[in-house]
């Protein structure tokens, strides 16, 4: 009796899963990445010193360049916190020591996404790009123009013919030119975002 019951409990869910896996096979239209799409994402950016970090909001425009590559034009906005963290060191140079989630930034990025082989509904990708943006640390009255490189990757998951969910992470490294006599400073940060993308007609 008990053996039969156990076998029933083990087998029934397996059969149900098998049914689901058959039912969930995505059709080609759903998985295919559109020629053009737009998207929005939200996440966190981590910075420090004179690289802004905090809440990251970004908008994307994607355009197919080749079989594997898509242009990814991005506008990103970073909203951080933090008070005055800059000071003059003993050489009279201005040094800023902002935290992981301080400052504000706006950036426009031209990037290329390279998609790899699909795994079911999922398409992993690598992303490489260059941006130009402003970083601002209001309490210190420090503003800079930054040119960072973006290197990262992520995964795109089709959820419907017109819609996909995308998650990505990236490293940001570059240089910035800042006022208050700071001159050229390195930019170094990370960002993790997730959002949705919509096929354009």
């Amino acid at each position, binding site marked *: 009796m008990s053996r039969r019951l156990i076998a029933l409990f083990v087998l029934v869910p397996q059969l149900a899963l098998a049914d689901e896996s058959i039912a969930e096979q995505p059709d080609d239209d759903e998985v295919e990445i559109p020629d053009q799409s737009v998207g929005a994402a939200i996440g966190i950016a981590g910075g*420090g*010193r004179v690289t802004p970090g905090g809440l990251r909001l970004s908008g994307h425009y994607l355009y197919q360049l080749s079989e594997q590559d898509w242009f990814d034009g991005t506008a990103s906005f970073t909203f951080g916190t933090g008070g*005055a*963290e*800059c*000071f*003059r*060191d*003993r*050489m*009279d140079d201005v*040094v800023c*020591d902002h935290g992981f989630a301080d400052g504000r930034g706006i950036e426009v990025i031209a990037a290329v996404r390279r998609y790899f082989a699909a795994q079911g509904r999922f398409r992993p990708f690598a992303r490489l790009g260059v941006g130009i943006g402003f970083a601002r640390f209001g309490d210190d009255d420090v503003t800079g123009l930054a040119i960072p490189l973006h*290197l990262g990757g992520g995964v795109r998951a089709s959820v419907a013919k017109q819609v996909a969910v995308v998650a990505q992470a990236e*490293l940001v*490294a570059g240089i910035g030119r800042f006022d208050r006599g700071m001159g050229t400073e*390195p930019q*170094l940060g990370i960002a993790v975002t997730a959002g949705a993308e919509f096929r354009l007609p």
Partner: protein
Amino acid sequence: MRALILLAFLVAGCGDDNVSRTLGARCDRPDDCADRCLAPSPDYPGGLCTVDCFSSGDCPDGAECIESEGGVCLYACREPSDCEFLGPGWTCKAEPLRMDQTQQVLVCRGD
């Protein structure tokens, strides 16, 4: 990837770790510091960001709470060369402790 990690460590390692807005930065006015600015004078050449204190326990590591200015933290030292990082005009001097003015402690001050 290794190069990026190395770059991260190098950037994080830049700067003079002894000096901060709390203690040691140059200043002209209180806004330049986290707590208090000892304005430029022969006692504090270039100005010095510091912290009000009642005892050395209120001070950052490596600093002592001395009686002058109503109780402020100054870098502890053993010899004049310990104060060279603060720039010209600084030396190592004996000052009374805030908590016990009968005791003296060596701190960096203007010479």
